[in-house]
């Protein structure tokens, strides 16, 4: 079934689109893609459908990788120019009521739990501002009693004067809660589905609110209805078959772009990395496959922002900036209080690229790009 035969207009619920597909069928189809399908998808560069995207991430497209990389590079230059958006995460809390089998913050992990107070947050802000950042991503685990909407709202109002662009990556919230946080100054909300494999989702998320697959799946809909400026999507690469998960992410994006057309979207590539006490990836993804995926996204959609974090190695990131990536973090700490450096909380995952923001900026410049620290304004 082609996505374009679905009636997008009739629904503001991705579940209804999602139900037209089965995981097994998608996983089979992507492996059966023929070279002619890949050729057709390449010809539609920049304006593909999710079906074209499927062709681009298929094993059949692997032999076209260099061509895909060139295409992705040129499409990105044309749309985004020779610039790279800089952002940095700030972990507010590692308290978490969920069990996620792959995550360092998992409830059953016996680690010190910390939620930053106002004073601690301002100390973090001070360090982050010295790095030069103006776009910040606030991150937390899911502990709604202590780290809920009231807490976020208060902290966003505290942080807002120091940054032009405030992004949020926390537990899924209700539409009204999002509206409050947007009013307080949130520009972007990131919410990763982790996996679109509904049955296995339950295995990875056995306990806590996060075990509700549907509530998470429908989060971007609630964000669209709340009128957020930007939504970030992604699947945790390595948990399940990355090809099937990425296809569903593309389907999700295509639906969202047509439904909430005033919202901007970004895609992230969280590739599973080792964390203390956690499982290793079930379906490890190679560097070559990650390059294929990044290029496939760009060739599928020339407007979507593509983001790469410090989960990836220096060597990979040095090359990835020319492959279609448009925003990048640097100098990240994934433990609450990690920048001011006195709290010793456990980190969510190990950072692979430990270079400082200055070093990353210099690397970006040496590749012929300008690092952009500010590309938003509090006026919006």
């Amino acid at each position: 079934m082609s996505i374009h035969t679905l009636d997008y207009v009739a629904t503001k619920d991705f579940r209804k689109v999602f139900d037209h597909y089965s995981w097994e069928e998608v996983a089979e189809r992507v492996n059966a893609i023929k070279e002619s399908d890949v050729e057709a998808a390449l010809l539609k560069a920049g304006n593909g459908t999710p079906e074209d995207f499927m062709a681009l991430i298929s094993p059949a497209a692997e032999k076209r990788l260099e061509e895909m990389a060139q295409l992705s590079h040129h499409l990105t230059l044309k749309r985004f120019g020779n610039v790279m958006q800089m952002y940095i995460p700030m972990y507010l809390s590692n308290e978490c009521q969920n069990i996620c089998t792959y995550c360092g913050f998992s409830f059953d992990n016996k680690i010190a739990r910390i939620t930053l107070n106002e004073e601690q947050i301002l100390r973090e802000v001070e360090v982050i501002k010295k790095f030069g950042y103006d776009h910040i991503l606030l991150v937390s685990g899911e502990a709604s009693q202590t780290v809920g909407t009231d807490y976020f709202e208060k902290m966003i109002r505290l942080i807002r004067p120091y940054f032009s662009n405030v992004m949020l990556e926390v537990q899924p919230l209700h539409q009204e809660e999002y509206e409050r946080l947007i009013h307080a100054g949130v520009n972007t909300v990131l919410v990763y589905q982790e996996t679109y494999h509904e049955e296995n989702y339950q295995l990875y998320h056995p306990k806590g609110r996060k075990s509700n697959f549907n509530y998470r799946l429908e989060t971007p809909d609630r964000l669209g209805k709340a009128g957020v400026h930007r939504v970030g999507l992604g699947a945790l690469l390595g948990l399940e078959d990355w090809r099937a998960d990425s296809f569903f992410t593309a389907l999700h994006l295509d639906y969202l772009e047509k439904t909430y057309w005033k919202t901007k979207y970004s895609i992230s590539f969280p590739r599973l990395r080792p964390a203390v006490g956690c499982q290793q990836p079930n379906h490890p993804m190679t560097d070559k496959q990650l390059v294929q995926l990044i290029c496939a996204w760009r060739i599928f959609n020339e407007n979507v922002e593509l983001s790469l974090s410090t989960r990836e190695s220096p060597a990979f990131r040095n090359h990835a900036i020319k492959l279609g990536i448009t925003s990048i973090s640097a100098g990240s700490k994934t433990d609450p209080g990690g920048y001011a450096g006195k709290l010793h909380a456990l980190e969510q995952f190990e950072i692979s690229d430990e270079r400082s923001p200055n070093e990353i900026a210099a690397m970006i410049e040496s590749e012929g790009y300008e690092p952009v620290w500010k590309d938003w304004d509090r006026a919006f």
Partner: protein
Amino acid sequence: MKDLIIAGHQFQSRLLLGTGKFSSKKVMADAIEASGTQMVTVALKRVDVEKREEDLGNYLKQLPIQLLPNTSGARNAKEAILAAQLGREALETNWLKLEIHPDPRYLLPDPIETLAAAEELVKLGFIVLPYINADAVLCKRLEDVGTAAVMPLGAPIGSNKGLQTKDMLEIIIRESKVPVIIDAGIGAPSHAAAALEMGAAAVLVNTAIAVAKYPAQMAAAFKWGVEAGRMAFESKLGGSTAFAAASSPLTAFLDE
């Protein structure tokens, strides 16, 4: 060649430059110089008043050119007006390129919000140059509320596709009493030349220069394209006709 006059100010160059997408400030500065431009637009969202020494806006302010802050990022009139006011303060100019695009993908301008914002901004003392679709009626409505120019698009922004809206642009140029500056989609000096030949007052170019392998050289090529087009226009370019001259004139009998 005649000067370009916008809101009583004279410009010798009819090429406006955008400042996004350049690989560094140095590359941008070289392109600005090579283009001979006297007016550049800068996104207010890129301006950081707190980082004085390295800020793009502050850097451009020191060049001997008219700065044209733009409201890129604004989704409605209210946001655009607020951004314009902050920009006026930060960049110390009342010139404004009004851009309102609620759609973040194609960055297509919202005509309803743009008209509302333009009316308000003119009252607030801004020199307003609105970015719009190639809509001749909207151009007249904007002229009515007092904009200093109109900036219709030639093709989707960043597409480098040239004057795809040519038929509508011709009507706009014919009917407009304010300068018509063709913005967006101009991908080659030949597109710029064609726009000026048609009678456009000026063109605004960004992607085609910023993303070229040699931006300064491309900027110079655009300078000449614009000059050639304007010179041709002022030289009364011979129009083309769909019909060959008839060997037996249809009105010759009148003289008989």
